[in-house]
């Protein structure tokens, strides 16, 4: 009963923040509301029994995306200060009809889905059964690497393509020299304390991912957060172009995963039928490096920090 009350409170908070995101008085309110929304979503995933998602959402949804949005907002302010901070008062005359239509859409969706019968047999059940026979203890990691490898492999490709897109857009940007942030002694002390700890947490998440909540995505996101923190403090100077080492590390995950996925073909197994815990860990480690660097470079590029 208490837990249901907590869920209701959380649900009300999420929906209220979402209203602020789409209809808040200023752009800044929307951004703050969205960042808090990400944090509450992390709690929501934990309540739904999905700790893997809670970890990823806290690091990516609230942390990285929030910082990225704030930096973009600052760039907008720098370009047109008088417009960006203004109250967004004018609305389309279609706003009311659209709002009504969207209410009907939500209500209809809820009615349709609430009436769905419970499935007799689900892919999730099969995956749990198959996980029990593999060496991997965390069913989510097993699905990501053993049963649905295509998803994960192509997800690495999406990250790479997104970075390429950002880099291309950035390359066309008018060069602007960003002011180096003024040194703050306390911030340096924080970095000295937090960055090694973050690396430790990333390593732990990668290691734990085989048997418990965690894995390459969460580890990569946490490591990327450390990189972002250092870049924001002016410790990492972003470049306009990736160095050969960076480029190599960016494709490392893709290369190792592809190699490990092709290997079973030689033994007459299907493509991407990864075998053994050691292979899983090797692929996950390479993925962590690529995801961490990819997210970090995406962040720098999207926030306009890289244009120099």
């Amino acid at each position, binding site marked *: 009963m208490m*837990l*249901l009350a907590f*869920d209701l409170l959380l649900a009300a908070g999420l*929906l209220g923040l*979402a209203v602020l*995101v*789409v209809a808040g008085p200023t*752009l800044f309110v929307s*951004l703050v509301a969205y960042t808090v*929304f990400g944090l509450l979503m992390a709690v*929501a*995933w934990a309540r*739904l*029994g*999905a700790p893997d*998602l809670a970890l*990823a*959402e806290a690091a*990516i949804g609230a942390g990285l*995306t929030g910082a*990225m*949005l704030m930096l*973009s907002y600052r760039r*907008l302010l720098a370009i*047109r200060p008088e*417009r*960006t901070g203004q109250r*967004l*008062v*004018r*609305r*389309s005359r279609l706003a009311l009809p*659209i709002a009504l239509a*969207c209410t009907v*859409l*939500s209500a209809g969706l*809820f009615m349709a*889905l*609430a009436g*769905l019968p*419970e499935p007799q047999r*689900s*892919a*999730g059940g099969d*995956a*749990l059964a198959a996980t029990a026979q593999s060496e991997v203890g965390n069913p989510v990691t*097993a*699905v990501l690497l053993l049963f649905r490898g295509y*998803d994960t492999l192509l*997800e690495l490709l*999406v*990250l790479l393509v997104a970075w390429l*897109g950002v880099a291309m*857009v950035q390359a*066309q*940007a008018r060069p602007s020299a960003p002011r180096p942030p003024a040194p703050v002694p306390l911030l340096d002390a924080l970095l000295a304390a937090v960055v090694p700890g973050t690396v430790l947490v990333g390593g732990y998440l990668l290691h734990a991912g085989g048997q418990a909540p965690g*894995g390459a995505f969460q580890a990569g996101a946490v490591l990327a957060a450390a990189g972002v923190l250092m870049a924001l403090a002016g410790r990492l100077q972003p470049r306009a172009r990736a160095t050969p080492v960076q480029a190599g590390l960016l494709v490392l995950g893709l290369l190792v995963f592809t190699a490990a996925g092709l290997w079973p073909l030689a033994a007459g197994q299907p493509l991407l039928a990864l075998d053994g815990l050691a292979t899983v860990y090797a692929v996950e480690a390479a993925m962590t490096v690529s995801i961490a660097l990819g997210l970090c470079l*995406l962040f720098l590029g*999207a926030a*306009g920090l890289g244009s120099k």
Partner: protein
Amino acid sequence: MAAQDLVWLGVAAGLVGLGVYGVLVAGHLLRKLLALNLLGTAVFLLMVVLGRRGAATPDPVSQAMVLTGIVVAVSATAFGLALMLALYRRSGEAALDDEAGAPDGDGRD
């Protein structure tokens, strides 16, 4: 369906409505991007909640797909932000700013 699942189904359905509303009505591209992300979160929630029905443990397949989806969503958002900033730098004008006070509102009605 359990009461808890109904609550979360309600949140997901509500977010779909709000997301679609935001994508259609918001004038500023940054806000459209946020609305698109809300819509994405709604889909993630739906996948996880529907995967929970009648199961003792949460569905690992939907969780894994959502995990992939979160990273794809942040990649797409980053690309969108970069495009938006490039457009803003180049045009600077009404293309982005309609909502903030151009005389003809969104110019879309």
